[in-house]
């Protein structure tokens, strides 16, 4: 026993050349990936140092660090002297959290409806139709929404026909969040339901048979068998989405918002984009906001993973 253990430990250092040679073809295959992640993920990570400088592109990161090191000034600016930032942060959390909750509730509802539907042909057709919007870009959706909900659009025409007055949905602060949540449900609910449907298909039929013998109604079976059956999946998906709360969907907001609704619609990513590329604020500030976002997201993931493991669910890390 002991001799083999020692032999193993030695071989870790001894046969290095041999082990590299053994793995040479796999190393050749992995080399592009190492280069790719190094360039496109790790260099930007090193680039976060820009957050501690007043950044000048012509000096590069090292030059800016040497000549324009500002310490935590950029962070102090966004937290103390930028009233817009705190509002943006609030919007981001509201939209990000709201979307997670609404998205999972709607996906589970759609999955339940399709699962309980007892007309096979319609079931297939319905599934093809409702999953399709997932594959459209937010550019296309913005086109639909801009025309449907404009003041000359069909939605306003219907409101007028019913005796109401025209509402400019996309330019009205009171309606914008609803538009964001509703369009997200329209695009994703059908597609996200698939994962729940797959889980439901995996629930043991014996449970339903036993419930039948006990005389359970369909609603009771849904409540006591189907929903508990998808609980683990739902929790896992929730955990996975928590890390993305602060992302809140750049593509969607960016294609739908306009200056009239910035106050309620602006999220961290759109704010970073506008500050850096439209308002030409020093890139150091944008980097600082991005770094803040990354750190908070990372802490959130760790936190949720911890909570999930403590409560006996499967974690992710």
């Amino acid at each position, binding site marked *: 026993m002991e001799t083999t253990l020692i032999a193993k430990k030695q071989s870790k250092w001894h046969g290095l050349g041999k082990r590299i040679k053994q793995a040479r073809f796999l190393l050749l295959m992995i080399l592009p990936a190492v280069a790719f992640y190094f360039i496109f993920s790790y260099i*930007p990570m090193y680039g976060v140092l820009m957050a501690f400088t007043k950044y000048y592109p012509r000096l590069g990161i090292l030059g800016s660090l040497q000549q324009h090191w500002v310490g935590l000034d950029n962070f102090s600016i966004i937290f103390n002297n930028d009233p817009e930032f705190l509002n943006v942060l609030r919007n981001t959390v509201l939209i990000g959290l709201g979307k997670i909750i609404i998205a999972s509730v709607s996906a589970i509802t759609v999955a339940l409806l399709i699962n*309980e539907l007892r007309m096979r042909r319609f079931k297939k057709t319905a599934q093809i139709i409702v999953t399709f919007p997932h594959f459209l870009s937010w550019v296309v959706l913005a086109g639909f929404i801009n025309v449907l909900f404009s003041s000359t659009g069909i939605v306003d025409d219907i409101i007028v026909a019913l005796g109401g007055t025209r509402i400019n949905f996309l330019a009205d602060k009171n309606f914008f969040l609803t538009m964001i949540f509703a369009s997200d449900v329209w695009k994703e609910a059908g597609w996200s339901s698939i994962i729940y449907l797959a889980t439901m298909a995996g629930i043991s039929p014996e449970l339903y048979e036993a419930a039948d013998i006990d005389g359970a109604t369909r609603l009771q079976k849904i409540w006591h068998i189907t929903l508990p059956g998808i609980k683990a999946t739902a929790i896992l998906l929730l955990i996975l989405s928590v890390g993305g709360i602060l992302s809140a969907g750049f593509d969607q907001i960016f294609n739908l918002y306009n200056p009239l609704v910035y106050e309620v619609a602006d999220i961290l990513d759109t704010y970073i984009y506008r500050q850096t590329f439209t308002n030409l604020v020093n890139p150091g500030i944008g980097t600082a906001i991005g770094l803040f976002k990354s750190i908070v997201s990372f802490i959130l993931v760790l936190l949720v993973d911890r909570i999930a493991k403590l409560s006996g669910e499967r974690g992710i890390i």
Partner: protein
Amino acid sequence: MAKNNKYPQLEKLPLRASRKGTNARFGGLDIFIFVILILYVIAVIFPFYNAFVISISSEYAYFNADLLLWPQEITFDAYTTVFASQQLWNGFGITMVLLVLGTAYQLFFTVITGYALSRDKWFGKNFVMNMIIVTMFFGGGLVPYYYLITSLGLYDTIWVMIIPGAIDTFNMLLMRNYFASLPKELEESARIDGANDIQIFVKVYLPLSLPMLATIGLFFAVGNWNSWYNGMLFLETANLKPLQLVLREMIASIASNIEMPGGPNVYSEGLVMASIFFTIVPMMCFYPFLQRYFVKGIVVGAIKG
């Protein structure tokens, strides 16, 4: 009994129906579910329908009809303009380049990486794996990325929409799990026959994973078809802009009414709707036949990931 015969196919279904009792009647709850789903399906279809109606109605009808629920004063002017638009065809061409080149490029790098990481212990595997996992939880953010791309000389070149997308971590892990699920004996016997890792990959594992390759390839293809973000950030030359970006600029100009293909006095709503169909019709045609591949992708990913 007579009531049951209304849906005779239900009695034969060995599927879900039998699970919940074959003898259950098609009752109130079934009707409720059916009605809700029909409404949902209509809500999904309606924007497409409305867009289509607008695209083939005249501008006069659009602005003057109280309720444009069906096409009025049918005209195909919008489509004529779209099909004559240099801008859109150019965007279409760029998008086709992305679709072919980008998808092949992404598949190649994602699959070889997935394969290498699916093999048992080899020198450096854990290091690479950790290196990749870290990027899933932490990133540098937009601004450093922007300056990286600029300093790589990719700014305002078509490559900016292809090169940075080489590996999609999620799909790569999907591929890795798939390769790992294939029997190890395949590798061992090929090795006895004197094959090296690359030969084993190309001759043994790749042919076995074609369905999975198709699924991942489709996801990449859709991603490339829909791509606009990197183009918006890094492209200035109008001729390099992909279809989605051209469309995005058209939509943005509905409000401000600038530079529509076909001149300033064109019916912009109709034109934009026609351009949307120009963009999505290829996908609408293929989707019903490809849906099961997409579904397979996420179901496999969910169970194994």
